[in-house]
């Protein structure tokens, strides 16, 4: 991969009829980076992300994810990425172990590998006692952490997290970010959208989308300096009010 970039996007555009949801965005994400993808509701974050993970076809532009072109090799991209959606998306009527086994299975892990992985995951998350309980019975924070681990079960190059900490308590959020750091340290690139501006501070670099365009892209420190404010919240407000 050239320049060590795992995501390279150039002029990526998505139109729905006359409406331009994503307007010629250009950015790149380096390997091992935690990349924050910020924007108000309806700014086009989710649409942009859907194009990158191969479930929505771009109207025009170029995008390369994990070394594959989104237009021609969407299926190859899917093998190299993990995805955790806004909605909690494990099966409530399956046990912790069954969920892990199922998702391991659809990512083509061998039976032996699934066994190893689920033992590691369950231990890391401290879920030994509830491993054979239905996921529906777990508290939301635990589910969220499990969901993150499951999205990483096949050791993807990039993991896409769509507002992963929505509705969880501050302690769990803290733990969640520790998990994100750990993943990044192990070389996984993390692409995360969020509403919480304090979380934006944890990212290596953030981009801020307004009305389908990327209006700012830099490290949190630089952005704050540029807009002459002392927290990301104010950066965001300045941009959004434009």
């Amino acid at each position, binding site marked *: 991969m050239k320049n060590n970039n795992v995501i390279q996007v150039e002029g990526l555009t998505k139109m729905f009829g006359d409406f331009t949801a994503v307007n010629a965005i250009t950015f790149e994400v380096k390997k091992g980076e935690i990349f924050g993808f910020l924007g108000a509701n309806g700014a086009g974050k989710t649409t942009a992300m859907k194009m990158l993970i191969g479930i929505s076809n771009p109207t025009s532009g170029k995008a390369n994810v994990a070394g594959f072109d989104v237009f021609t090799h969407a299926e190859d991209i899917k093998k190299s990425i993990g995805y955790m959606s806004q*909605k909690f*998306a494990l099966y409530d009527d*399956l046990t912790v172990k069954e969920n892990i086994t*199922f998702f391991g299975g659809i990512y083509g892990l061998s039976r032996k590998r699934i066994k190893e992985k689920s033992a590691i995951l369950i231990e890391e998350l401290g879920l030994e006692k509830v491993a054979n309980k239905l996921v529906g019975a777990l508290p939301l924070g635990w589910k969220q952490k499990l969901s993150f681990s499951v999205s990483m079960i096949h050791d993807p190059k990039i993991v896409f997290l769509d507002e992963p900490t929505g509705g969880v308590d501050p302690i769990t959020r803290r733990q969640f970010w520790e998990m994100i750091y750990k993943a990044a340290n192990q070389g996984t690139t993390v692409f995360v959208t969020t509403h919480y501006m304090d979380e934006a501070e944890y990212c290596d670099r953030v981009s801020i989308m307004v009305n389908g365009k990327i209006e700012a892209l830099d490290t949190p420190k630089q952005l704050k300096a540029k807009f002459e404010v002392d927290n990301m919240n104010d950066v965001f407000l300045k941009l959004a009010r434009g």
Partner: protein
Amino acid sequence: MKRFIGFIKKEFYHIFRDRRSLFILFGMPIAQIMLFGFAITNEINNVDIAILDHSKDVTTEEIINKISASKYFSINQFIEKESDIETVFKKGKVKAVLNIEKDFSKNLIKEHKATIQIITDATDPNTANTISNYVNAILIQYQKELNKEITITYQTVPQTRMVYNPALKSVYMFVPGVMTIILMLVSAMMTSISITREKELGTMEILLVSPLKPFQVIVGKVFPYIFLSIINAVVIVLLSIFIFKMPVQGSLFLLALESILFIISALALGILISTISATQQTAMMISLMGLMLPVILLSGFIFPISSMPLPLQIISNIIPAKWFIIIIKGIMLKGVGIQFIWKETLILVAMTIFFIGLSVKKYKIRLE
């Protein structure tokens, strides 16, 4: 392949851990076939009737004896005056009153003509009709016995023979219908619900981001229901053979093939419904209103298509269930082979291909 097996295993967990779907899958077919077989019937048995006998002579006594001896009627009470007729009907138990005129025997001998009035409670028109036919038949029989010695020179004697269901058992008519409903319900409704459930939960998105191809996801969702529908079809056929003694005249193999064809067309409909509905509730409503009602009302299962108004007759042609009922009635009751039902089969095949094509197209649009 290994992925596929894992997927199917998961699908079965969903089904077996949800009491509601278990009930629909296994309770419903058995309950329905039993209900239709035993409780809902067009035949009449031991209907309560009342008798208003104005003459009380030898002939009327003979007639009354004949009627009470038949298994169709039991005489509930004798009433004395015209005004009582209304009262017994209002009480509700008595379904018919025989009003025998005064001097019945005398009239019969003198004028060769005497009258019995049959008054039936027509709040249930079918039963009323059947009762009056049965009473008529008993009277005609009696008349024949009276006239045994006399031969009439010119006489047309209709000879009726009921073929394919000589005992006129209603269960013969219901089994094909119930089988159609159940297969439709299990295949179309259950799959549409189970696919929309994944959409509602957000897991569908996860599955589509995974290396599984969209068609693998759909086939994986649908496959368990093909399997369960086939089991259901087998259970229904076994119940009708062993409990209702309904023979399967034709080839079981052909019956199985046609059933699978119908199951696939219903599944395609289910997928189609799931692509246009966002929630499980919508999917269920569309399945019930859009599939079940037409199947019950317009397929010829309960109401004969030939006696419907023309527009409805035309509409009935686009209902796959209509063709399937014709096919399985043909195979089960008449024992026909493919040479007699190839046209219906072809229509069903065409419909199935159309539904599959349409749902593939819709599904792709949705993915955009």
